[in-house]
């Protein structure tokens, strides 16, 4: 406030005028049309981004970041739960993995015994002969194609997709 009473009144008048006039002026201005006239592309072209980036001290920003705090906020459990591990494992070609890595020799050394080897052979031969007998046994009575629609195994042990409908 001015110490002069006349000056003070003028000041009050000016203030009240401004309070009325400024909103009227602002309302009168069409901001959208002004923005439309502005050539943003030209402004961007003028900006020297490299110069701005050069000024930024990235190291300082990185130093300011509290990585531990960010890690503490991350819910690892939730992330792990979201990952479909089965889908990832299914994509892995285990055969080539064993062939191409030392994993093969490790497995061989750790699990191969004469007895295991003999059992593996007997069982695999058995499975092959089982298939042969099933196939030819049914082919002989004219049901060779029908057996393809037979279920592979009990519903609790074989996934529904592999159980063919009869």
């Amino acid at each position, binding site marked *: 406030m001015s110490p002069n009473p006349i000056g003070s009144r003028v000041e009050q008048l000016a203030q009240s005028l401004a309070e009325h006039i400024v909103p009227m002026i602002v309302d009168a201005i069409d901001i959208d049309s002004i923005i439309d006239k502005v050539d943003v592309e030209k402004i961007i072209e003028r900006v020297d981004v490299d110069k701005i980036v050069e000024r930024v001290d990235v190291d300082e920003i990185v130093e300011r970041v509290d990585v531990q705090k960010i890690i503490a906020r991350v819910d690892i459990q939730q992330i792990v739960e979201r990952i479909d591990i089965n889908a990832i494992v299914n994509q892995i070609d*285990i*055969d080539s993995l*064993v*062939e191409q890595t030392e*994993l*093969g*020799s*490790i*497995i*061989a050394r750790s*699990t*191969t015994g004469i007895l*295991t*080897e003999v*059992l*593996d*052979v*007997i*069982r*695999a*031969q*058995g*499975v*092959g*002969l*089982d*298939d*042969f*007998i*099933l196939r030819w*046994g*049914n082919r002989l*009575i004219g*049901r060779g194609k029908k057996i393809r629609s*037979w*279920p*592979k*195994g*009990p*519903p*609790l*042990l*074989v996934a529904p997709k592999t159980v063919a409908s*009869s």
Partner: protein
Amino acid sequence: MTTVPVPSAALTVGRQGNYAGAISRLAAFAADVGASWGLYTLGVALLNAALKLVSGHSFTLSNHQLPAFIVLTLWEFLYFTYQWAVSGKTLGMAILGLQVVTRQGAPISGRQAVFRTVGLGLTLLTAGIGFVGIVYQRERRALNDFIAGTAVVYDWDARAARLRWIARKEGPPGTPPPQEHRV
């Protein structure tokens, strides 16, 4: 290192839980007959030795045919029932990688094990006809499976077996890899 060929994936991987076929089951049964008979013979020999030690007289069970038949029948009943009730597989089935399960694929109960053993005896009395279902029935069930409400599946970890084969395929340095085996 071995030169055993690697069987095709179709014969190994993914077979766990599938219905078992005739040859595997027949081989398992033969192994069980051999094992149970061997144990019976051993038991009789030990009993003879024990009786001779105590009484000084030799006792031969085979000279008493009816008691011998009853003891053998009871022993076979116990051999199969106990093993099926406890683990769903006999010694022979464990060797061949087979397991008895319910029709749905769950472990069998003691009651089913008893029915299956009795059913096995009845199936043997049909002179092989009771086993025809293993080849011609859609769930590969023999007569004793129908009586007990069971099925037989492959139980061996074929995936691990295949990995062992592939691992062995490396062989010693300079050894050519064996060819894929097809039946």
